[in-house]
């Protein structure tokens, strides 16, 4: 028995929400903004992937007679410079923005988590070199690095994947490394090591599960960055292979009509704003709920 002061909150937290999932559920109950964000994100994702089921127009087929048609009952957000329905293109474009938000983030998480755990667990020279590499990557202004990488690899969506993964693994690696190092000293890990369990097994059995909450937090917080970077990379005109498109590319392409046909440029910008804002709110909520380790 110790003399800790009465802390009911903690007591409750431990009893009701012992698991990460439980705490996330609690967050959705208490944090209305985060809950609403989840709804928005889910709606956007569902709408975009179900698009072929209900879309009245082909997103890629030009219709020269309807060029720059203003918003109307048949075309809610009007038509673009080649007469394609803007709303339909926006919905289809969401897919690429979503994939770009999720895929490189997942890749970089995997890479960062793996390197971070190896670095933290093995220590020594391995740790030194991995962390110096992380320093190097973190020192680059990430957007410029992504631009260089995607320019090096040539346009196209795959190079954007690689570019975005290459710039964002380092932050993850640092956090996971720090956690691994503290977990490594925990009794259950020491016990496992003392009976000769192999390093790889320890990492997968004992360390990885304990890093999951941090990974979830990092994941939600990294997605908006990836989507924003994609839109910035589109500034160079690289990205999805035409005629398919992404939100970033739509802004890039239609910004030129901002003065004459403003809806063309405003709609994809708003879409990014809403989607990314939702992810930011969700990320904050998730971090408030799960974050035992990270401060910033």
């Amino acid at each position: 028995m110790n003399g800790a002061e009465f802390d009911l909150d903690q007591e409750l937290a431990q009893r009701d929400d012992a698991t990460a999932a439980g705490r996330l559920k609690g967050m959705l109950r208490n944090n209305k903004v985060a809950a609403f964000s989840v709804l928005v994100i889910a709606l956007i994702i569902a709408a975009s992937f179900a698009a072929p089921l209900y879309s009245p127009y082909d997103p890629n087929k030009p219709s020269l007679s309807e060029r720059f048609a203003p918003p109307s009952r048949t075309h809610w957000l009007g038509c673009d410079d080649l007469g394609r329905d803007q709303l339909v293109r926006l919905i289809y474009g969401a897919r690429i923005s979503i994939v770009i938000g999720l895929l490189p983030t997942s890749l970089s998480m995997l890479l960062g988590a793996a390197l971070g755990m190896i670095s933290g667990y093995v220590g020594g020279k391995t740790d030194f070199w991995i962390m110096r590499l992380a320093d190097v990557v973190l020192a680059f202004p990430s957007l410029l690095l992504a631009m260089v990488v995607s320019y090096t690899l040539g346009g196209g969506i795959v190079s954007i994947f690689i570019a975005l993964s290459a710039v964002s693994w380092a932050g993850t690696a640092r956090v996971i490394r720090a956690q691994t190092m503290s977990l490594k000293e925990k009794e259950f890990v020491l016990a496992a090591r003392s009976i000769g369990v192999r390093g790889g097994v320890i990492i997968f059995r004992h360390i990885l599960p304990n890093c999951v909450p941090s990974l979830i937090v990092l994941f939600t917080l990294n997605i908006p960055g990836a989507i924003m970077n994609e839109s910035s990379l589109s500034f160079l005109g690289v990205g999805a292979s035409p005629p398919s498109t992404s939100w970033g590319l739509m802004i890039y392409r239609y910004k030129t009509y901002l003065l004459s046909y403003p809806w063309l440029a405003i709609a994809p910008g708003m879409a990014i704003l809403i989607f990314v804002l939702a992810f930011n709110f969700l990320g904050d909520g998730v971090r408030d709920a799960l974050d035992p380790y990270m401060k910033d």
Partner: protein
Amino acid sequence: MLRRIAVFFVAVMLALPICAFVEEFAEAAIAPGYENVLRFATNDEPNTNDPQKTTEYYAVNFQVFDRLVEAVTTGQGQSDLVPGLAESWEISPDGLTYTFHLRKGVKFHNGAEFKAKDVKYTFERMLLPETEAKNQDFIDPIKGAAEMMDGSAKELSGLEIVDDYTIKVTLKEPFGPFLASLATPGVAILNKESTEEAGTDFGLVPEKTIGTGAYIFDKWVLHDEFKVRRNDNYWRGAPELDGISWKVVMDADTMRMMFEAGEIDVFDTDLVPSQISYFTKSEKYADKLVVGNRMGTYYFTFNHDIKPFGDVRVRKAFQMAVDRKGMLDALFDGRGELVHGILPPGLYGYNKALPEIPYDPAKAKALLAEAGYPDGFEMTLTQIADNPSTLARGELFQAMMAEIGVKVTIDQMDEAAWYAVRADGKLPAYSGVWSADFNDPDNFLYTFFAPGNTVRRSFNFKNDALSNRVAAARAIVDPASRVKEYQDLERAIIQDEAAWIPLFTTQHIFVVGDRVEGFKVSWNGWSDGWHYYEGLRIKK
């Protein structure tokens, strides 16, 4: 103590912007000194203003230098060759020897008098390998040019100084458009002494970039602005304007806002073709459009080395599958004219009688089937990334090809890779526009279809007989038979061989602000032009 310093540092950082704000806010909106300056904008920084070392940035060169012969704009898409620094010239009957009588009393900006040695210096500098000049094409028909370029000669044997004001130029073989090519901005005349002295600073440092032109190179702030000022001692008479400035604005959409906010005087719609319909349809700008015909042709290419483009039936099918009128309407608001060959209307030697290539997707499909592709095939169209107007053209092409069953993938490459692959003859297909450097069919046919050039432009045109005729046509002296030969070649290459898909020529539209009066588009419809002509002035 150290802590205090840190605190102080933070405080200063916070205070700095506030001070700056107070200090700088009360400042005039329009820069003083620009009251009588014509203000342009460009979206690309020149690499240099050395006329011999650039192939694309002539905005300053036109104003600062003069040429032996000048091409002046006489009407929309029309030009005349008039005497420049050469007062007069004689051409020998065999077309091999040109004798130029130079103008006397012309002064360079540094006060030195223009003499024959300057012409000799200019030509030899262009040809010497160590100069790394890029415009050698325009003078390489001169005898001895090849020897200079490969380093075996230090002097140009085909150029002879008769006296200070007379030079004699001998060609290797007759070259019809020689005079016209001397009028291109790349062959501007430099001053021997000052250019030698400037060394690598020539073209970069304004005060060391000396010419005889109507304006003096005044300043160049990188990524911001470059400017020329009036040459009061200009031999044709000082211009009316105090100067001309070019603002470097990377984002063309920003440029348009600057124009509307009155920060620039002339808006070049070529930089933002998407804005054409806005300006042409707006009543506000109806009387502010200055329109010139472009001496240029838009086209799609295909690489004859790549299956199935070796088959003329496929190429013809493609020619018929493109709705060129629709494309012109959609992308350029219909402001232009369809082209059925190579040469744009208005160019010397343009053939009005060329039969029209019809838009006929059904027949195109039939032709494809005949060639063995009833279900179409897949192909790649390349373009340089970050070019929305080319992309729009490509996407329309993509959709039109889909109609005849051909699936087009658009591959956006970066500029360097694109040029490198094209020079290797390996680009599968692309679209582009070619505008005349000088007013002659040679500038078009030789560029694309001469042996070697068809590879460098990724055509790989297989009809060697025609290619060789393109090269041989250069030496024809008689104007009438020259024109006939070029027209025959054009018909054979495009209408029979279907070597490319000609699209259209477009108008070049400038929107000119309230202050400006008398602005003219240069004869070839370029963005850069020689802004020394009657009537150009700024309203007071």
